[in-house]
Structures are given as C-alpha cells and as structure tokens.
C-alpha cells in the first residue's frame, strides 16, 4: 500500500510558449494537511487541475494514491474537490446539487452531510442561481467534506466565507485530519494555512521555491529579537553570524533580526547585563513576503 496520497514527478504544463507549471516534484504523505501557497498566477490552480486530470501534463506524471491522475475513474474514487470559483447548475437547488454529487461521487456520509449543512448554515432549498459566492462555496465544501474521501483537494475554499464560516471550515479540516483524511489546501489566507497545515509548499511563477514544515520555515526566516540591558550595550553584536539590522530602539533597548540558530547571538549577549529578552518568531505572512519580495528583487 502506498503511503503517499499525492505524488507529482517533473509535472510540467505549457500553454504555447507560456510555462504555467515548471518541473514540479511534490509528495504529500497520507494523513497530512498540506498547504499550497503562491501569489496569483503562480500556477496553483493549474497544478490542481493537473492532479485532477482536467488538463493533461506537457511532461511529467502525477499519482493520486496508487492511480495515475489521468485515470480519473479510479483516481477520483479516493478524492473530493472544491474548486476556487464554484459554479453550480443555476436551475438546481442546493439540495439537488448535493444529491447529484452524492450519487456520482465516491460515497457519502449522509448524517455528517446533514450536520455540515446545519453547521455551515446553508439554505439548500434555494436555486443555485440565487446563491452568493460564499453560499456556492459552502455547497461545494459540504459536498466534499461529506464524502469522507481519503483525499480532499481544496482550492482557495474560504475566499468567500465570513469569519464564522471560516471557523467552521477549520473545524471541518481538523475533523478530517482526525479521521485520517489527507488535505491538500491551496490558499491565500496565510493565517488559515498556519492554523491548519502541517507542511507548506510555496510556488512562484510556476516553480516550487520551498517545501517545508511551518516550524522549519520559521527556522529559515528572520525572528525579531528585542533585548533590554543595563550599562554598556553588548559589543560586536552586528558581527555575529545570522544577526542583521541592529537598531537602538531606546536607551538600554536593542532590536535586531536573527536568522538560524540563536546560540552565537546569545553568547554575544552574555557579555552585557541583559535584563529582558524577547524573541518573536515570524508569522507565515512575513515568511511568504520574504520569499515573494526577495524573488521580486532578484528579477
């Protein structure tokens, strides 16, 4: 039995001379909640459409569990999908769409579906034509979570949801994780990814620039350290490896950024009479902007 829920090898998609996705290699183990980040047009949706077999790769291959992603009849028996911009049959009501999805899908837990409808406060008697963006998204989310498929592929699933519904979404993801489902979550909501994901990949201009756990990402990025001291400031701090942009905030107070292990900086600080030390780890947004900003600068 394969212990990978998703696997992509050298996955490439070109549209004419435009390369939407370049040589993506990715492995998502079973049971993981995997975040997929990137600015607009980075190739996130293209990747998902390739994984779903909706578009054909120019090169490379992808697998969903043991099946080739192109063999949709087999691969889709173990996944459920929420598209980024949900379009529903305008003449069908929410209940009718959920019924259609249940009849054609990989199997559904009807009791859990009813519970999700209640929790997401979805009025399923309305025709889809009258649904707002958020309500259309709720229909797709309820249909996907109710399947209990071992893999959930969610493409920006909360972009139209209000904060209350976003909380319900996080709870549903946590429930899915507890049941052992794998979640592949593409998102712009960095706080959400930070809250629910074990590992993230960052995509930029069709290329994978980083793939790591959130803890590892934090270690790779600048933390902000604030030191209060009495008397002479710690000498030679700006020469310590990993320390950058030392600034005097006020008399007796220093702030600097730190990348990597804090040990050399702590040794340097030991030379002074330190009264207080605060280390603030970067949030995902800062990490994301770091990657994106650096890449922009390098262009």
């Amino acid at each position, binding site marked *: 039995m394969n212990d990978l829920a998703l696997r992509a090898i050298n996955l490439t998609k070109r549209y004419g001379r435009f390369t939407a996705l370049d040589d993506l290699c990715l492995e998502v183990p079973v049971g993981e909640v995997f975040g997929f980040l990137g600015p607009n047009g980075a190739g996130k949706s293209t990747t998902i459409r390739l994984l779903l077999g909706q578009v054909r790769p120019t090169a490379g291959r992808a697998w969903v569990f043991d099946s080739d992603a192109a063999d949709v009849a087999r691969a889709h028996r173990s996944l459920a999908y929420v598209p980024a911009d949900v379009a529903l049959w*305008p*003449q069908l009501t929410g209940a009718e769409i959920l019924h259609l999805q249940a009849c054609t899908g990989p199997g559904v837990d009807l009791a859990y579906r009813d519970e999700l409808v209640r929790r997401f406060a979805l009025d*399923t008697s*309305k025709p889809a034509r009258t649904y707002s963006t958020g309500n259309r998204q709720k229909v797709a989310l309820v249909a996907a979570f109710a399947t209990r498929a071992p893999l959930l592929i969610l493409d920006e699933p909360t972009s139209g949801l209000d904060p209350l519904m976003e909380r319900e979404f996080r709870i549903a993801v946590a429930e899915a994780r507890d049941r052992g489902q794998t979640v592949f979550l593409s998102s712009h909501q960095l706080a959400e990814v930070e809250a629910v994901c074990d590992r993230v990949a960052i995509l930029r201009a069709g290329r994978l620039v980083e793939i790591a756990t959130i803890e590892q990402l934090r270690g790779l990025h600048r933390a902000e350290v604030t030191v209060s001291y009495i008397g002479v400031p710690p000498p030679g701090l700006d020469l310590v490896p990993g320390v950058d942009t030392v600034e005097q905030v006020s008399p007796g107070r220093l702030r600097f950024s730190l990348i990597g292990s804090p040990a050399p900086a702590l040794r340097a600080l030991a030379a002074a009479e330190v009264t207080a030390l605060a280390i603030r780890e970067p949030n995902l947004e800062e990490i994301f902007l770091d990657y994106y900003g650096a890449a922009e600068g390098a262009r």
Partner: protein
Amino acid sequence: MITRTVPSAVGISVPALPGRAVTRLAVRQLRRSGLIVLVLVAALPALVASTYTSVMADPAAAGSIAALAANPAIRTLFGEPIALEQAGGFTVWRVGTFLAVLLAAWAILATTRITRGEEDAGRWDVLLAGRVPLREAVARHLGAVMVVPVAAGVAVTVVLLLAGTDSAGAAVHGAGVGVLGLFFVAVAGLAAQVFPTRAAATGTAVAVLGAALLTRMVGDGLNGFGWLRWLSPLGLLAVSEPYARNRIMPLLILLAAAVLLAGAAVAAAGRRDVRGGLIAVAAGRRPRLMLLSGVGAFAVRRMLRPLSGWVLGIGAYYLLIGFTTVSVTEFLTANPALAEEAARAGFTALGAVEGFAATLFALLALPVGGFTAVRVSAFVAAENSRNLTLLTAQPVTRSRLLTAEIAATAAGAIAQVCVAGFAVWAGIAATGGDLSLSAALGGAWNTLSVVLLSLGAATLAAGWAPRAAAFAGSLPATGGFLLLVIADSVGAPGWVRGLSPFAHLAPVPLTAVDWTSTLIMITLGVALCVAGVMGYRRRDLQG
C-alpha cells in the same frame, strides 16, 4: 458652500461618452453571426430572382403555378402565392417566409444572448458598475442588434432592384423583412427584461415566433380566417402583398408594435434589479430529486425542458402538414401540369400522399439536426462556464460524460422524429387520408441518418474544436439543405449537389429506404461521434 467635485488629476482620462464603449461591446458580440445572416438574407432572393426566367420560360408552367393560389393547403404551407407572374412576386413566395423566420430567429437568439445571457453570466455586474445605467445599456444593446434587420431589409431591396424587379415591390418586401426583424428584437428584448434567465427569455420569444407562424398559416389557409393574419407579424408581411398591392399600412402597424415593445423593454429595464427580472425567481422550493441519480440521468434531466419546446413546435407543424396533405395531393392530382411544375421546382411526386409526406419529412432533419447541435454546444458551454467542473472531479470518465450527453441527445432526437411521424399520420387520418402509421413513422425515421451526421459533426467539434460545436453541428442539416437548394437553383455540377446529405435521402414513404446510403451516413455519423469522444478524452478542459 460645499461643492462636490470629482478629484481630477493629470493622467486620468475620463471618456466623455461611456455609452459608445457599450455600443462597441454589443457590436463586437454580434458582428460575426450578423454578417452571416446578412449574407444569407441577401443571397437567397438574389439566386431565386435570377433563376426566375429559366423556371418560367414555359408560359404554361407560369399559368399553372398561378393556379396554386386557389388551393388553401398550398397557401397554408408556403404562404399565399401572389404576383407569381413577376420575378419579384415569385421570389417572395418561394423564400420570403423562410428569410423572415431565419432573420427573426437570429434576432431572438442574438438579443437574448447579448443582453440577458451576459447579465445572467454576471458579466454585466462590472459593466453596470461603470457610468452607464442599466436602462441605457439595454437600449444600446437593442439598438446594436437592430442594425442587422435594418441592413437586411436594405440588402433585400437592393438585391431585388438589381435583379430588375418592380421598385415598389422590392421596397415593400425589403421593408417588411427589416421591420419583422426589428419586431423580434423588441420581443426578445422585452422577454429578457421580464424573465431573469436567458433560457426563459429565449423560449418565450421563440414561442411568440412559433405562434406568429401558426397564426399566419391558419389565416392563409382557412377561408374566413384571413383576418387572423392582421394579428400575426408574419401575417402582416403577407397582407402587405409585395409586388401586388404593395400596402404600407400593415408594415406601419408592425413597426408601431416593434417601437412599442422596444419602448416597453427599455422602460422595464429601468424598473428592475440587475440580474433580476420583472418576474422574480422562486426563493426556494422542495428538492426534486428525479433524474439526478447519475451522469446519464442528469443529461436527460437537463434536456427535458428544451426538448418539450422542440417537440411542441415540431409536433404542431407536422400536425398542420398532416391536416393539409389530403387537400394538397387531391388538388395536385387534379392538375397534373401543376404537379409536373412542382416537380421541376424541386418538389417531386407531390400528387401522392406518400410523395407529399416524404418531401416534408426531409425538412424534419433541419430542426432535429439543429437540436443536436444546440444540445452539444450547450454541453460545451457548461464546460466553459465551469458548471461541469464538479462533475469532472467525480469518478466519472470524460468519455462517459460525453457519451451520456450524446445518448440523451440522440434519444431526444428520436422522440422528436417519432412525434413528427405520429402527428402527420394523425393529421392525415383525421382528414380521411390514407397513410399507415408505419409508413409515416418510416418516413420520419428515414431522416435520422442526417440527424446523426449533425450529432456526429457537433461531437467531433466538441472533442477537437469546442468553440465550433454549434457551427459544425448545423453543417450537415442546415448547411446541406442550403447547399442542395442553391445547387439546384444555379444548376451546379452533380458532385456539388452530392455533398449534401439530402441528395442521398430516399423519399420515404414514397419509395423504400435507400439502405446503402443510409448505412453509409450512419457509419459516418457514428465514426464522427467516436472521433469526437476520443478528442474530448485527450484535450484539456476549458473554464
């Protein structure tokens, strides 16, 4: 004093006439199909008028065609033949109604597509957030569509004048065609304000067109009901009598009705919500879970509503044909010279019930073939608008998705063909004629080979060039029919005529089915479907 000013800055351009951009947007969406319609509307009268001299070379033939006017059934089906002794009058009788219906159908489809269709798809939300209000946007879109009927009317007049026909008749016929087009733009425009969905708006406007055609037919055919024609837009065209009395009054009435309806449409646009209609959608309803159990069932469910419209229209038309068959055939049997003339004009063996039925059954391939093209292009449209996305993420292969659609469409086509056969049989039986039900059904089924070609061509396009699905699907039936008519009119070489599937269709039930050509067409149709499914499996989904 506080004055509100628009902040102005260097580098900000504020176009003085934002409405013109809206007009340009409307024109962009119309120009291709509008040009095609314009060319057809100008070319057909040109062809018929220029071949008039050769058809009418025999004075006896001219006299016998004129005698057609006496028969109510002929009048029902082809319109009242007047002024057949002139090229202009003959042209009006031969293609006038066809042109009017073609232009009206285009006007309806184009109007609802660029108004309600765009609004329904959400593309007007951004447009209307600009400086152009809804009322003006609707008015400008209607105005843009109306250019085509006006141009078509002018083109018809110019073509008939160039063919050397009487100038008053040319002007009245051209004006009639143009005003009729304007009327149906206004009808569709109003329907697009009343109903919140494109399908409902189009359906209502098409129903008005169908009712107009039937009213005209009854008014033309039944003595004592001639006044009914004053109630039908197509009837008003008939009572204007181009090349005979050249009456202006009916056209003015039609123009007034068009102006009134267009005014009502613009006024209604000012009174409704964007994305809403005058009629509100029900806020909620109990789920109807029938035919949602799988991909195939769902394909049938999506087809049922449009199918009922097509069945109603086709059934009514062929019932009317059934009712008139006995009268026409008896009349033609009593006038052998006339029957011979009809044969020369392309209507073979009209003197026998079987021959008459066979001729009109062949026409059945046009609407039913059109139905298959419309259904396949609706499937492609669902892919483009991403309605299909959730289904393509289910454990269902692409071939299964498309095959389900093909199967449902084929079943719908068979249902329509059966209804037509049954309606003709019932009409003939009710008027005391003699045609067995199996012969009537056989004649109707015979056209299925052409319908299958249409379905195959549309499917092939769906697999390899999805944007061309509607066009490709209409090539075998509508294109083939036009090709045959034009080839016959200009005396084109045999191989050109042979390109049309209609050239290979035996006149069933007059003769037996030509199994060789039927099997060839069926094989070709199936091969096109298979090739289309293969392309659909391989290509990237759009949307």
